């Protein structure tokens, strides 16, 4: 635990995590912010590895880097360019900074001053199996609630993000009608109206 490699890993990962997080604060472009967030998340995943929590580390990469960040990028791309600005801060930034500094002082004080009575046992092995077993044995109710929550989030997100289907539906039905026609009628008989008349010349 005390060897050089571990030190190197911890400090570089800590720098990566905090550096990435700080860059989110100052980056002006939201897309840059998301990329810095990814860097920070990767740093946290690395820190999990130094804590011998490899299952959680892999899950962290899988969900945060592979899914959440991409989801955020998607949301950013769906809003126009003007909304990709991350530089504007709330007017309440000053009081917020004060609150944050107070929180920071108190948490740091607690973290350093408390005697945690840390024991260093051997790290868990086969974490995936253990976590899985405890999930469906001890924590079955929270597990089910979590499943329901995820489903609700899925349905809710789809319901929220679905665009009003009016014009899309009109388009789809006209396209459908055009494509399907009627199998029993000759295609030539399906008279399309688009022969332009004088009034609506061409298109």
């Amino acid at each position, binding site marked *: 635990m005390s060897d050089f490699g571990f030190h190197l890993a911890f400090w570089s990962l800590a720098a990566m995590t905090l550096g990435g997080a700080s860059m989110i604060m100052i980056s002006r472009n939201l897309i840059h912010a998301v990329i810095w967030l990814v860097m920070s998340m990767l740093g946290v995943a690395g820190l999990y590895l130094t804590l011998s929590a490899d299952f959680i580390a892999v899950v962290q990469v899988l969900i945060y880097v592979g899914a959440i960040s991409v989801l955020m990028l998607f949301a950013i791309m*769906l*809003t*126009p*360019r003007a909304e990709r600005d991350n530089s504007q801060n709330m007017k309440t930034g000053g009081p917020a900074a004060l609150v944050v500094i107070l929180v920071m002082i108190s948490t740091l004080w607690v973290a350093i001053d408390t005697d945690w009575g840390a024991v260093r046992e051997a790290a868990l092995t086969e974490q995936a199996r253990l976590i899985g077993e405890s999930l469906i044995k001890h924590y079955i109710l929270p597990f089910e609630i979590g499943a329901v929550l995820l489903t609700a989030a899925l349905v809710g997100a789809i319901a929220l*993000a679905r*665009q009003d289907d009016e*014009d899309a539906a009109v*388009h789809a039905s*006209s*396209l459908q009608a*055009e*494509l399907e026609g009627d199998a029993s009628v000759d*295609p*030539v008989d*399906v*008279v*399309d109206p*688009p*022969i*332009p008349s004088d009034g609506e010349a061409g*298109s």
Partner: protein
Amino acid sequence: MTMSDDTRLAMQGTIEALTSGDGSEPVVVNLGPQHPSTHGVFRLKVTLDGEIVQDAEMRIGYLHRSMEKLAEERTYTQNIPFTDRIDYLAAMSNNLAYCLAAEELLGVEVPPRANAIRVMFAELQRVASHAMANGTFINDCGAWHTPLFHMFRDRERVLDMFEMTCGARLTTNYMRIGGVAFDLPDELLPTLEQFLADMPENIANYEALLLENEILHARARGIGVISPEMAINSSLSGPVLRATGVPWDLRKANPYCGYEDYEFDVPVGEQGDCFDRFLVRMAEVKESLKILRQVVDTLPDGPWLADVPLHARPDPGESYARVESPRGELGFYLVSDGGPAPYRFHCRPPSLINLTALKEMSIGGTLADAIVTLGSIDIVVGEIDR
């Protein structure tokens, strides 16, 4: 309500209309003039909402050489090489159409052997051109060049035959007013026999590879649909028109060069979509091979060029001759004022006119559909721009 309120409401409505939907802005994408699948220097300006085409506008003229003006300074014979360069993928058909128009103006009778040779080369050109059209069409559907290269093999053989006959592969300049420039070389007919013997198997291969390909069906069927009424009204011609079910083929409707003597059929589609255009081309290749077989069997002897003075001055008048080129109805409209050069030289370019309905075909589909539709129309930019 005051006037300013009206204006404000109208502006608000505009803003809402612009930002409705899922909030994404329409994106204008330029396909071309330098783009892997625009078949030359053709530019399509597509307005996209997501992947859906909202508007398609074509910009052409990158290859405009003003041939119609240049032709007014050259004699009737000197104009034949221009026609090669109008549709450089079907030079023989263009030679033929122009020579027919000039012959109508000059009142020249073409010898039967010349007519048979003309039919032979026009049909060979159709085989080559359709091979190219279908190959690039499958490429536009996203295949990785495999069908294209197989079809190019056939095209190469046709071009080899052109080369042994007139020395050029692409811009042949083979037809003359009153016939063809040279008689067939001795080695042509055996080569052609071999070609005709090999083609059925090749076509069977393509059909096995492509016709039941589900992905190709999914990409090409129901895409770029146009109704027969709209097709006729838009002056579409060739395979694009026939795919809608309209059996209009000038070789049957207005036989030239003795097409009435040959047995062949006009394949027509049903839906008027991209896949039907592809199928019509595949079927037309078979019909062309049928014609070629008959031409080879009944090739008459005799002169291959009528006695036409090089320095011909036709009487004042005009002529309009059309042939069924691989791309559609190719016409040449010539006006003579009695001078050595045409007073007016006009080409009815099927590629250009078939593009009339491109916008209607591609709006509402996706970007990928627009590319497939463009590929299925089979344009040649040399002919669009002239």
